[in-house]
């Protein structure tokens, strides 16, 4: 067998090992991975604890948003109903959509990933367990506070996509819109933190031998999901930032009178919003691709094509954002491009559906609750997909736009493409995390109530839409003829709620969380998550030789449980997992995993507090929380990149690997690269906004300041990049010199920023007067964030030097700082070029 890294793959033949394991090996492993007890449980970072908490929180928000849906359906059941007034109704429908999309759907699939991926990949944990815990707590605390805004009548009321000018301060005074704009800030951060964890986890922590051809489909889908978050979420981050700046500082990005354009919001929002449908669908489809082979008792048909379908969905999903903007007056040819892409995206989705049907046909289906939900999901999703093709046709979209037809379509897609797979997953994987499996009888009742309820509610709703009923109206007149379909939809909604209620009863009666495995592999799954597990995940990490290792090796579970594979104990007496190569999953080094600590929990609490206090305009408290969050994050980082003894460790059968790595091999480098990709995407969207607003009113674009300041700032940026590069080069010989170079680089960057600000100020920059000046000021503000972070990082490097924590043999810290400084310098230089030279060029 060929090797990717020089690792001798013949060493795999040493497994399973023979002979007894040392007596105290297992007890030491258990002690190392024991989660904290008492109040300290909030600092737990084991993936199974964080994963279950995460899923429970997401399900809570699903139920809360479902209750809001019932309030809406009650109001609409009868014409001129007075159950909700129009203001409350606006808040209820806005919160329903927002909570379902931001607080339920994305976090739920991320949560299932956190819970399942380490076990499925054969890892002890994900590579950044504290990041998962941080993502969860920021989301949970912030999400609860955000939801509570509805009890005080200050919840957002501009629809879940918050279109300006309706949501501008002129038309939406008060803090309702601010709750949406700042309130979901922590959710965006949380989603990106989770995405980093998942990308690095899938690429670097797979069991030895699990080359990409053997990677479970769920892991493929989570990988593409996470990459789509990294590409798509920056657009909505920027959109919320711009709208909040417009509301708070009167900077006119969306005000047409001052050179702005509300269509810019739609471009930015839907560049995130439409891919978000696939961000939600892909992991759910990945779950179905795991569940269906098990219930059909045969391997997935067309495995390679399903992988290709997932990958192509990740691409085409980003070519569909104008799908939501057909009625905004865009050029016909442009809309035709997006119409074509909208139809094309059904091909990979359809391919997965055919693979599932073929698998069900090829095997012998054992009907159970997961099977019911899986098949129900396929039926509902296909029906939603077909109306999606109808809406991709521009003339039909003109007719159906903003009617209940669209509401029916999106609910079919999201319920079939995400909600039903999630319930299938609950029933399928519950025996992995609960001492008891969930009830088959209650599960079937829940399924039929939900399945029939979905059609009663939403099939009828297509008709309501075609009869002309628009979305977001709180009531209607009797003579318009919408009463009967609305009443039927309300009955259906309560049927769905009854089904969900039965699942809640089932969970209350039967779900008892355990890390030690429950009934186990009751459905006969063939992948690694069904190995016996504990707080430390699997006892030993197996060599993977096929896509369904448990089906192909009857002794695997026993051998793993007896510690006959990799890492049967704790190699260096700490929490650890094996980092493997990206393609062939060959062992590279032993990663020392962090221990639970209060720093990640504190960082999450203060991050959520920062955003929420900012929303209610308690600026001093908000800034204090922000500072406290930064302090916690620095403390968190301070414990990383410490000396490790010994330099190499035995990971089983006498195979020795290093205990430290740096550069592109290390998981930390990958995380920094992904963070910078997110930053780069936000900046790219900012540049797109600049060019887009120029294209609306080219004549109104003013000439830039004189070129001399540009030259000074550009030279300083180049100097900062050179210092960052030099710091990395000299590190092996002088750590002190490297730390000082990072400091000089950060100072150069600050000087470039100051020079740029000075020249614009001299030229009379007035961000509240024109969209051009507002965008230039935003680019400068964005750069300021990177200047400040670079300064903190450089001071951090100096502090580590004085603390004796910089060591020539451990360059990871300085590499990350250097990478960040280089990126910041390049970003500042691109900003200079665009704002100074683009107006001259055009």
């Amino acid at each position: 067998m060929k090797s990717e890294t020089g690792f001798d793959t013949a060493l795999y033949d040493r497994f399973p090992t023979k002979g007894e394991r040392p007596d105290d090996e297992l007890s030491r492993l258990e002690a190392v991975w024991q989660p904290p007890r008492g109040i300290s449980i909030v600092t737990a970072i084991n993936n199974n604890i964080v994963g279950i908490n995460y899923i429970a929180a997401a399900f809570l928000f699903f139920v809360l948003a479902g209750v809001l849906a019932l309030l809406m359906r009650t109001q609409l059941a009868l014409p001129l109903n007075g159950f909700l007034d129009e203001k409350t109704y606006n808040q209820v429908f806005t919160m329903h959509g927002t909570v379902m999309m931001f607080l339920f759907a994305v976090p739920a699939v991320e949560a299932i990933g956190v819970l399942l991926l380490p076990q499925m990949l054969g890892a002890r944990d994900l590579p950044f367990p504290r990041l998962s815990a941080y993502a969860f707590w920021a989301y949970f605390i912030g999400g609860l506070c955000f939801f509570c805004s509805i009890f005080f009548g200050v919840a957002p009321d501009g629809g879940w996509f918050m279109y300006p000018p309706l949501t501008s301060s002129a038309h939406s005074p008060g803090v309702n819109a601010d709750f949406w704009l700042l309130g979901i800030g922590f959710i965006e951060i949380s989603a990106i933190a989770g995405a980093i964890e998942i990308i690095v986890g899938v690429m670097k922590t797979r069991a030895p031998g699990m080359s990409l051809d053997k990677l479970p489909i769920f892991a493929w889908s989570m990988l593409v999901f996470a990459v789509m978050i990294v590409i798509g979420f920056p657009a909505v981050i920027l959109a919320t930032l711009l709208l909040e700046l417009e509301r708070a500082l009167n900077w006119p990005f969306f005000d047409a009178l001052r050179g702005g354009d509300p269509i810019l919001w739609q471009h930015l929002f839907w560049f995130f919003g439409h891919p978000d449908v696939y961000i939600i669908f892909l992991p759910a489809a990945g779950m179905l691709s795991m569940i269906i082979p098990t219930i059909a008792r045969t391997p997935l048909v067309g495995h390679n094509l399903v992988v290709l379908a997932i990958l192509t969905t990740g691409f085409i999903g980003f070519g569909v954002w104008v799908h939501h903007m057909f009625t905004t007056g865009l050029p016909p040819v442009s809309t035709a491009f997006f119409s074509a892409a909208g139809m094309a995206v059904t091909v990979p989705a359809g391919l997965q559906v055919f693979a599932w049907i073929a698998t069900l046909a090829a095997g012998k289906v054992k009907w159970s609750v997961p099977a019911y939900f899986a098949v129900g999901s396929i039926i509902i999703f296909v029906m939603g997909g077909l109306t999606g093709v109808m809406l991709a046709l521009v003339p039909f979209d003109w007719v159906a736009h903003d009617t209940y037809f669209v509401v029916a379509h999106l609910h079919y897609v999201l319920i079939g493409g995400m909600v039903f797979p999630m319930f299938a997953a609950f029933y399928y994987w519950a025996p992995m995390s609960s001492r008891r499996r969930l009830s088959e009888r209650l599960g079937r009742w829940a399924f039929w109530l939900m399945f029939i309820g979905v059609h009663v509610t939403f099939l009828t709703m297509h008709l309501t839409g075609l009869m002309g009923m628009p979305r977001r109206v709180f009531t209607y007149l009797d003579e318009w003829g919408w009463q009967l379909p609305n009443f039927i939809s309300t009955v259906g909604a309560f049927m769905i709620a009854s089904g969900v209620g039965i699942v809640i009863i089932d969970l209350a009666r039967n779900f008892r969380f355990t890390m030690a495995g429950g009934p186990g592999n009751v459905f006969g799954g063939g992948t690694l998550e069904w190995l016996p597990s504990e707080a430390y995940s699997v006892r030993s990490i197996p060599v993977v030789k096929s896509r369904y290792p448990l089906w192909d090796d009857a002794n695997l579970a026993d051998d793993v449980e007896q510690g006959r594979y990799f890492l049967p104990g704790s190699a260096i007496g700490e929490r650890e997992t094996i980092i493997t190569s990206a393609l062939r999953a060959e062992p590279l080094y032993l990663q020392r995993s962090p221990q639970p600590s209060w720093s990640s929990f504190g960082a999450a609490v203060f991050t959520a507090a920062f955003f929420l206090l900012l929303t209610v305009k308690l600026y001093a408290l908000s800034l204090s929380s922000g500072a406290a969050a930064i302090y916690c994050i620095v403390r968190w980082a301070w414990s990383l990149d410490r000396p490790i003894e010994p330099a190499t460790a035995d990971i089983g059968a006498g195979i020795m690997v290093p205990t430290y790595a740096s550069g592109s091999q290390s998981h930390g480098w990958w995380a920094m690269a992904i963070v910078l990709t997110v930053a780069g995407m936000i900046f790219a969207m900012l540049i797109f906004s600049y060019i887009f607003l120029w294209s609306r009113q080219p004549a109104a674009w003013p000439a830039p300041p004189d070129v001399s300041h540009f030259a000074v700032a550009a030279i300083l940026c180049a100097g900062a990049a050179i210092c960052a590069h030099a710091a990395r080069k000299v590190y092996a010989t002088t750590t002190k010199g490297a730390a000082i170079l990072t400091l000089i680089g950060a100072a150069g960057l600050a000087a470039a920023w100051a020079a740029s600000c000075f020249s614009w100020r001299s030229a009379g920059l007035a961000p509240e007067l024109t969209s051009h000046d507002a965008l230039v000021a935003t680019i400068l503000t964005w750069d300021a964030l990177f200047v400040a972070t670079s300064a903190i990082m450089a001071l951090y490097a100096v502090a580590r030097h004085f603390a004796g924590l910089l060591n020539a043999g451990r360059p990871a810290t300085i590499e990350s700082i250097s990478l960040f400084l280089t990126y910041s310098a390049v970003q500042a230089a691109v900003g200079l070029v665009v704002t100074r030279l683009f107006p001259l060029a055009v």
Partner: protein
Amino acid sequence: MRRWLIFLGGPLIWAAHFLFIYFVASVSEVVAGETSFPARALIVVSGIAAAICNLLLLFRTRRLPGVEPLEIFWRSVTATGAAISIIAIVWQSLPAFTR
């Protein structure tokens, strides 16, 4: 990185072509107030060029190793992705012929 670029070559070329034709149509709208004939011609020509790139990629996949399971998987996904992308690029260019 090169290996990944080839692996994702088909969809990457599709994406680059998609962004390019959207850019061309938008610029034409700003400059000429409509999607002009030169812009439409550029969309078609770029579509042909992108399809040819994918065709070359398809031939290139025949030289990829295909003995081990990972190599077979890699080659199969690369080749199918390139082939499907040719169809997608042609499909995506058709609006150039609309009014």
